[in-house]
């Protein structure tokens, strides 16, 4: 990510923090906060999952969040529980939840990783992934990878590689290149690298 984008994200998050202090407008339907509170039983309080496999969603980019929810609603991802849940919400409600989670701080927890694999994964990440998943995969314009629960990353990569989920633009080429560099271990090395960050 370019530096000015990072700045605009900080400004945006500051704006969100200020918004939460303003009196609530009168509106129909549950608030964004009320909608988001219902997610905590699986994704952790305010979106910081305590694992071992449900993904953390705190600090997630709002557009990535909305796209994911729309994909689930259309059954475009390998069926989990989320496709059934996403069908209950409108686009506007997706946006409200997206803003709630974007303004939450992500609390990460240590995971057990293989140091040698993680080291190799760090190199692969820099070479193939950093351009979209900036700062080692910290929450940004693409999905959160750094410190994400490893089984979830595993499932996600399995779904991409088996054709059960559509690749985001350019990602297939990058993953193919990483596998060309390091063989079948490449994906596992990357996951250990992301899991080693907390």
């Amino acid at each position, binding site marked *: 990510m370019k530096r000015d984008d990072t700045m*605009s994200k900080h400004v*945006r998050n500051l*704006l*969100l923090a200020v*918004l*939460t*202090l*303003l*009196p*609530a*407008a009168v*509106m*129909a*339907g*549950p*608030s*964004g*906060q*009320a*909608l988001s*509170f*219902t*997610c*905590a*039983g*699986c*994704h*952790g*309080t305010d979106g910081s*999952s*305590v*694992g*071992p*496999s*449900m993904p953390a969603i705190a600090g997630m*980019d*709002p*557009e990535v969040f909305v796209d994911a929810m729309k994909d689930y609603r259309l059954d475009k991802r*390998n*069926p*989990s*529980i989320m496709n*059934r*849940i*996403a*069908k*209950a*919400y409108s686009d*506007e409600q997706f*946006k*409200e939840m997206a*803003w*709630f989670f974007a303004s939450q701080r992500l609390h990460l927890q240590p995971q057990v990783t293989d140091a040698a694999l993680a080291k190799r994964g760090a190199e692969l990440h820099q070479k193939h992934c950093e351009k979209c998943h900036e700062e080692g995969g910290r929450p940004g*314009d693409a999905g959160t990878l750094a410190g994400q*629960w490893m*089984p979830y990353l595993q*499932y996600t990569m*399995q779904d991409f590689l088996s054709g059960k989920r559509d690749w985001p633009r350019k990602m297939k080429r990058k993953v193919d290149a990483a596998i060309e560099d390091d063989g079948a271990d490449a994906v596992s090395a990357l996951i250990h690298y992301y899991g080693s960050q907390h």
Partner: protein
Amino acid sequence: MTNIDRRAFIRGAAGIAALGVSAGFPALVLGAARRVVVVGGGVGGATAAKYLRKLDDTISVTLIERKPSYTSCFMSNEVLSGERTLQSLTFGYDGLRRHGIEVVQDTAVGIDPLQKIVQTAGGGKFQYDACVVSPGIGFKWEAIGGYTEEVAATTVPHAWNAGPQTELLRRQIEAMPEGGRVIISAPPNPFKCPPGPYERASQIAMYCKHHKPRAKIIILDPKDAFSKQGLYLEGWRKLYGYGTDNSMIEWISAAGGGKIEEIDPETLTVQAEIEEFQGDVVNIIPPQKAGAIAFAADLVEGDWCPVDKRTFESTRHKGIYVLGDASSAAKMPKSAYAANSQAKVCAAAIVNRFRGLEPGDPTFVNTCYSVVGEDFGISVAAVYGLNSHTNTIEPIPNSGGVSPANASAEIRKREVSYAHSWFKNVISDMLE
């Protein structure tokens, strides 16, 4: 995201400003510190206590719970298969204390709705501005002849509140001879954890498959259908020979004479409507009602506590809110996730009331995972809204439901891992 998209998003957020109860003034600005007394430290009570403080830390919150620690009933069927210990389901209340909640180990015995005082067995009197009651379930001991609290504690455990009876049932299954027979008597609707009796049969079968492969598990049911039935039957066929002569699990429905009338604890013989069943291990899950304090405090109509579904305030006594299994919250099931979800709606409504604001529109979720066997997990999910005309909580149309039938082995395996995540996150959301 382009800059234009980004601006649109920010405008959207400003327009929404739907930020619930974090908006407005803290209760303290409007007067003396408000006091909430929470009765019961299960999922409903603990979540309500935590979220009250999270939404407004000027509110003084006291939680009254008779036990020194919480033992989760969800996931406790895994104790029966030996997959986990009861200890792994037991958690202290220090996390709530760190949120500034006063946790008092005592038993609430009465609530005076006019004086607004909760009385405890230890002689305590706790003044409140709002009282949250989340006592869980009680049992209808009179419903089954020969079945008493003493019998349950010693020879025929119900194990429907996780604790010593869960471990007793585990020991009985371990001590059972090869080729032995386990009888599970399922309760009539409504009851806590609708898929639970069937997960229990599954977990016992998972243990027996390895250690007592000729064992039989018979479920005697006063119902003709049960939660996640299609998925359970699929799992039982795949894992335990269901539908063959060698099936480890047998389900006897109401129509087949599954309703039981009497138990002889000496001979472990159960009298059902049509025939008698004798077991080596008998587990009776009795018919249920709201927990004792709900009756003592005059909060029940019939077996359960009627509430205003927008706030969970009792329709019988103002200022008292009833959550979780004890409340009449159809069409939500009596489950941990449901109690957790209701508690947040209730906490927000109380904070709004203290600030002189109307309660917001409620939204609820239930999710529930069951582990049918090794690498075989299944789930049900629903999102609910309020139909204010009928005061009923209704699922949002065309959403929710159970795991797909005949899903891949990979999906079933992932749902076991997700089941354990769901457990950890509910626990963390209520206690940490």
